[in-house]
């Protein structure tokens, strides 16, 4: 474990090399922003709508027999999406989609000697292959998380309206009540940290892959599993530090 940890930090350090040609790195970063950001809009949107809807339905059910005012459903959906569900669920979903894709892409390049070809040309492969992915992720994923929080609230709203759980006025009142801007900051901190973790771990798994297609599959799976565990661990640490 210490061997992998040491090698991971060495790889992250070597990522900060001077770009051979800035425009090439910018192109690679822009492509990654498109792949990670635009390419993940649908999955993040869908996951968030359903999470928001389920949260609304379940809280409305639990509040039915209590004296808590019904507008609390909107308040709870908003805060739980911002504080926890939008950053964590989105990044867990992205670890599956983006993380496995990154590990497979870099691992495939390693196996087909494309990384060796870049090395021989004089390209700093850690910087060229990894830095654009991480930069793109830490720029785009926080934006996706904002979208996720919004879509989650939309999902909660739709569930309440369609299922007639609370009135639209109550739900909207809940959304506007007790808002603490600091929670949005916490959401963005989580998104930033999770984005870094899921891309860097996936890059590491792909970059050092050895063997054939079975090993590539394993690297891809490890990227998702380790990213998920580290995201949940980081979630706990951030919750402890920031609340």
């Amino acid at each position, binding site marked *: 474990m210490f061997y992998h940890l040491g090698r991971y930090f060495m790889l992250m350090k070597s990522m900060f090399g001077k770009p*051979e*040609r800035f425009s*090439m790195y910018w192109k690679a970063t822009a492509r990654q922003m498109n792949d990670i950001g635009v390419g993940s809009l649908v999955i993040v949107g869908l996951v968030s709508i359903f999470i928001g809807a389920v949260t609304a339905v379940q809280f409305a059910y639990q509040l039915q027999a209590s004296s808590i005012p019904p507008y609390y459903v909107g308040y709870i959906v908003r805060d739980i999406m911002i504080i926890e569900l939008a950053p964590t669920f989105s990044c867990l979903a992205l670890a599956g989609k983006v993380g496995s894709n990154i590990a497979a892409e870099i691992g495939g390049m390693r196996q087909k000697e*494309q990384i060796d070809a870049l*090395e*021989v*040309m*004089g*390209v700093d492969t850690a910087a060229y292959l990894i830095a654009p992915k991480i930069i793109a992720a830490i720029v785009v994923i926080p934006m996706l998380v904002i979208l996720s929080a919004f879509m989650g609230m939309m999902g909660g709203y739709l569930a309440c309206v369609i299922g007639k759980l609370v009135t639209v006025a109550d739900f909207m009142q809940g959304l506007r009540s007790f808002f603490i801007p600091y929670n949005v900051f916490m959401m963005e901190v989580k998104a930033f940290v999770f984005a870094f973790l899921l891309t860097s771990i996936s890059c590491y798994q792909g970059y050092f892959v050895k063997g054939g297609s079975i090993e590539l599959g394993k690297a891809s799976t490890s990227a998702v599993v380790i990213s998920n565990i580290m995201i949940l661990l980081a979630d706990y640490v951030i919750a402890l530090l920031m609340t």
Partner: protein
Amino acid sequence: MIRVENIKKQFGQQEVLKGITTVFEEGKTNLIIGKSGAGKTVMLKILVGLLQPTSGHIWYGNTNFTQLSNKQRKAIRTEMGMLFQGSALFDSMTVEQNVRFPLDMFTRLTAKEKSIRVDETLERVELGGANNKYPSEISGGMQKRVGIARAIILKPKYLFCDEPNSGLDPTTSMRIDELIHQITVENQMTTVINTHDMNSVMEIGDKINLLYFGELAWVGNCGEVMNSDNELLQDFIFASPFLQRLRDSALKNGH
């Protein structure tokens, strides 16, 4: 010129290269030959810096390559071109994008100048008009030629080829050999080819280095192969009964 001094390489307890000393000459096609497991690929990877030797030195001109840091190696690496066994083309890029990649990364040429250079290089490797094809849409021989074009686009001083004939039919294989040899002579490059193709040995081997289980067993040129009495060389080159008969017949006729 590349000078190799007492290169040793060990993987755990296994010693793959046991002190190789040789010179790869400028303007010549230098071959590294040997049976599978002889250490050819390891030698080539050490030459280009993909592997670090356990001990020994490699000199590119007057520069000791083995003592340079990765950062310092970058300057020499821009003078290197390499053709990989599986071509190692970027499969999500077209032929043109693959060949243009080193220009995009290391030069400040304008888009027009790059296009001209790419077209010229593709013409040189007889691939004019294949610019917009993807590697998956062209044959193995064409992929090798794209690999050569990418390797020579920056006009390198050193060209390395790892088994350039593997997986090719004899005719295509000969054409690839000719092409590499012609390019070497035209540009006065130091070319190092790792091969076990007998045709390459006999046709383009200006300088041949035979590796035998990590040791340098014989050095000579293609003209000296026939008359050499080195048993390891004879066992390797004339391994099949057909080639043995051919050799006996040639020697009988005074060739």
